[in-house]
């Protein structure tokens, strides 16, 4: 069961990578694989049990998968020594700015849609 689910996910990733390489697309292969799997699930109208269990297994341990790349920070210590404060200011301002913009737009559009649904 688990093998079929893993195979399905890997096949969609492979398909995504193949299309990206063939047509020189700017999107990461797995992202295209995700879109194609979503389309496949929508046309199937359900999630096969094997696919769901593999997906839940991978996503519930998602944080662990970042660790190897995160440790790679050790390669960029010289860049960080010079620019860590710029990066920190940029990250904080961007999070706050994007949160304000998104919250105002989304709340306004949501309210408009609800008013319309009522009226």
């Amino acid at each position, binding site marked *: 069961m688990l093998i079929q689910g893993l195979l399905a996910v890997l096949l969609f990733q492979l398909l995504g990578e193949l299309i990206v390489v063939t047509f020189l697309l700017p999107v*990461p*292969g797995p992202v295209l694989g995700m879109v194609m799997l979503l389309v496949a699930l929508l046309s199937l109208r359900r999630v096969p049990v094997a696919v769901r269990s593999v997906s839940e297994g991978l996503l519930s341990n998602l944080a*662990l998968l970042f660790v190897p*790349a995160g440790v790679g920070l*050790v390669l960029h210590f010289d860049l960080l020594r010079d620019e860590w404060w710029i*990066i920190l200011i*940029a990250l904080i301002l961007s*999070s706050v700015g994007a949160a304000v*913009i*998104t919250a105002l737009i989304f709340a306004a559009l949501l309210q408009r849609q609800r008013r319309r649904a009522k009226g």
Partner: protein
Amino acid sequence: MLPVTEFWVYFAAQPLLWIVLTLGVYSAAFAIHRWAGRSPLLHPVLVSMVVLIGLLLLTETPYQTYFSGAQFIHFLLGPATVAIAVPLFDYFAKIRQLWLPILVACVTGAFSAAAIAVAVAWFFDARMETLLSIAPKSVTSPIALGISQKIGGFPELSAALCLVTGVSGSLLVPSVLKALRIEDEETQGFVLGLTSHGFGTAVALETGALAGAFAGLAMGLTGLITALMLPALVALV
């Protein structure tokens, strides 16, 4: 019996040691996080990174040696990205109902997150590599790694910046929402997922299941939109 140093020399060259250490350190960090009341500052990924980087520096092990083992864990990021299709499928009815607000807010939000970060870094004369690595920082890490690779940033730096964004965002964004008097769960979850991806989704889930669902949706869509938008923008510039 072999002396300890020779054991180390033998096993340090094997992938197995680094897989076991990564899993072991993460499990311990996970337990500490839970014990400390899930403070975002003690997130298991951050704690694991600090411990493992310290270990590599202490034993003078090159990152390449570490990665020869850790790559087997790293590989799973690709399948994990594909697997996000399943929660997106689950929320699809709600997405279809609210597709216009979701799409408009997600495009403007994803664009402003990347644009503000790059503009601030550019204002302070950061290097080109920093600018390219900081651009995908609001996106969930597996997607950000792929984007960073595509546009010529440092994938490892982008991954770390995503983690820092997640931590700082999940600490800051709830106060921003409070200041704006945003009270509905949909908007709260959506904003948390958009700005702080997985970390924000975890915070949103504490508010409620609806907020969690919208956070997961915003996280997936922001990843998708940024993946489509950034490489095209970089090619233009």
